């Protein structure tokens, strides 16, 4: 890619002018290389700025910069203004729909609650220490116990819980979907066998799976000292059931569309089946697989919130539902905070997957 630079290096000693030229072209090459990654991570607006520094015509680059950063910011500003103006017009029985200011206030409020809860937790541990010390003073051989804080999970705890759950479900889903997809892609017969099932299960809503999953988990996951909470498993498995389809379908398509010549080469070289899978099939279908994974994670995140809401499993969904049930004058604003949190996390997850996809498919994002 940057062979130009190495070529210039072999020439006779250059003038200052030439050196500067070389530096500039190196700089450009670097910018151009970085561009797809910056675009993927949503930092594309840095590129025109760098180019201006690199000495390109500011006018054209400023246009780019305007389009990439200023316009979106203006749009967000306009949205906030419209929302702020329209929200107070709607009176619900929980008071007016909160505007941006009230929602911002609740962000602060939720953070304060988080801090307060942490203080309570510290007090709890202190009391526990004291109790244990008292016990030991009475009887040096007494068994003391150390227990986790039992208070409510704060908003930030709920976010972490949701993320752990969605990734668990997504991971299980991927472990099932990718091998199955490879098998379906390689064999037309198997594909024909699985296809109707996939088509039937794909559109099923998480809310329909949930009661079934709950019952099955309750029946099968019985142990005195469970490693995972039942609720966590229920949510994760529901995510799995809803999110594995895009990965499965994309993997099958990716594997099926491998260049026939490649497969023939594999046959000629008499590669083992396993080598063929790892050396030929997987690498060439990776872009497809990652496209599937990205879709799956998006679906999984959406499904998770619904599952948590219905099953009352810990996480953001439960937070929303609890607030709705509370019906206090702050509830709506808190729910809005959750809506934005869910949206922003979903966006970040998507970008992360997009970046990974870009890496495996050499910058071209399907």
């Amino acid at each position, binding site marked *: 890619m940057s062979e130009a630079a190495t070529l210039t290096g072999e020439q006779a000693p250059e003038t200052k002018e030439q050196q500067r030229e070389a530096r500039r072209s190196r700089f450009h090459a670097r910018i151009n290389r970085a561009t797809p990654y910056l675009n993927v991570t949503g930092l594309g607006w840095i590129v025109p700025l760098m180019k201006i520094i690199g000495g390109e015509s500011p006018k054209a680059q400023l246009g780019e910069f305007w389009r990439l950063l200023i316009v979106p910011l203006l749009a967000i500003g306009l949205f906030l203004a419209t929302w702020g103006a329209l929200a107070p017009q709607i009176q619900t029985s*929980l008071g007016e729909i909160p505007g941006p200011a009230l929602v911002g206030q609740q962000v602060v409020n939720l953070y304060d*609650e988080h801090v307060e809860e942490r203080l309570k937790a510290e007090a709890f541990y202190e*009391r526990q220490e004291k109790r244990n010390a*008292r016990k030991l003073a009475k009887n040096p051989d007494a068994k003391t116990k150390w227990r986790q804080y*039992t208070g409510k999970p704060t908003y930030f705890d709920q976010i972490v819980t949701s993320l752990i759950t969605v990734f668990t479900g997504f991971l299980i889903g991927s472990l099932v979907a990718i091998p199955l997809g490879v098998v379906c892609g390689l064999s037309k017969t198997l594909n024909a066998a699985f296809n109707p099932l996939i088509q039937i299960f794909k559109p099923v809503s998480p809310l329909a799976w949930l009661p079934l999953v709950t019952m099955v988990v309750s029946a099968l996951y019985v142990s005195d000292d469970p490693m995972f909470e039942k609720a966590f498993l229920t949510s994760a498995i529901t995510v799995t059931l809803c999110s594995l389809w895009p990965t499965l379908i994309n993997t099958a398509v990716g594997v099926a569309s491998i260049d026939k010549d490649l497969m023939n080469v594999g046959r000629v070289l008499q590669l083992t089946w396993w080598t063929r899978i790892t050396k030929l099939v997987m690498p060439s279908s990776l872009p497809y697989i990652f496209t599937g994974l990205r879709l799956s994670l998006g679906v999984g995140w959406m499904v998770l919130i619904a599952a948590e809401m219905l099953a*009352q499993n810990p996480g953001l969904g439960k937070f929303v539902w609890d*607030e709705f049930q509370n*019906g*206090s004058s702050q*509830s709506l604003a808190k729910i809005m905070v959750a809506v934005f949190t869910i949206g922003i996390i979903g966006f970040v997850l998507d970008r992360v997957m997009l970046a990974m996809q870009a890496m495996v498919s050499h910058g071209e994002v399907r």
Partner: protein
Amino acid sequence: MMGLLGSKPVLAEELPVEKDELKLGFIKLTDMAPLAIAYEKGFFEDEGLYVTLEPQANWKVLLDRVISGELDGAHMLAGQPLGATIGFGTKSEVITAFSMDLNGNGITVSNEIWKEMKKHVPKGSDGKPVHPIKADALKPVVDAYRAEGKPFNMGMVFPVSTHNYELRYWLAAGGIHPGFYSKTDTSGQIGAEALLSVTPPPQMPATMEAGTIYGYCVGEPWNQQAVFKGIGVPVVTDYEIWKNNPEKVFGVSRKWADANPNSHLALVKALIRAAIWLDENQNANRPEAVKILSKSEYVGADSEVIANSMTGTFEYEKGDKRDVPDFNVFFRYFATYPYYSDAIWYLTQMRRWGQITDEKPDSWFHEVAKKVYRPEIYLKAAELLIAEGKANKADFPFGTDGYRAPQKHFIDNIVYDGHQPNQYLGKFPIGLKGKQTAEQAITASR
């Protein structure tokens, strides 16, 4: 430290609890207060229990999770342990050794219905409606709806809930048939003039606002919420339907109680202390309790809504605030003692409306009550507290046979004696008696 010098009782030995990390479920209602107080005031911790309180989506989920063992115990409707044990709905043995409170519910109707109803409510000299408002005033409204062929829908919180029986009691006392259950039809709407269906408490106001139901019977704060939101009018409290009626219990599965007797005992101890705290010095602690309950992890409604009933007043029509000092009773009048007669009253209502499909002898009622209600555990906890100096002997009904004296204060003036359930059932003009089934009763009344 100076325990030997002070006159304070020596710190009691913690019970050797079998399980100390417990998860207890509750529904967002004011009467979950004993749980919140026992947690916030450290009563659970004093017993060496590390309790997590978890709000549940609805009564069904709560009960299923107690039965499946996901929850160690929960704030339950008095009818739930009884219903589960006799197999109405989910069949599984659930017991209770602690009754959580008395009263605390109300019946609310939408503004529209109230406007119609008000025409038939007698007025006092001050121009205000005379209380208690009876369902007689609602009857013409229901009849008008039925004449137009519109179903008259009302909400209650669960088939075996206090609210279902109270709403039915109130309607039937005013001559409105609330419908029967039968073996084959568990909708509870056989022959009904008012159609009752289940809605989770926190969604009651929203459901009424949406016009799906015209009224409901629910615990606080969801009646006062309707007044605050201006969407409905509470017409009667359950205190007026049946003075000092038992409302919620703390239920655990029998399997759990057998495996963890000491944990159970410790829980009951902590809950009794919380109940004492809630009622001591003429409700002096109620404002603090309201503040705790309004936190989002407990009831979460605005504190002024919760305060309305918790501090001894109740607002009916907007501006018509009346004193109901005993609207929420947590400890007075032996509120926390699990009386067999309370259990039997619920069983009679289950029979009255056909949830118990066949005639049962009196002995059956007494047996079921003794299977589910466990005063012996309660009294053991009380004795421990008295020994620790945390409670007074006079506050517990030691020596009772488990039956309250015949109770007279019902809205229709029918007297209830827990010793004779079948005789009691015979007194109701609307309801199954003797060998009747729902279908027979409907044909007989035509």
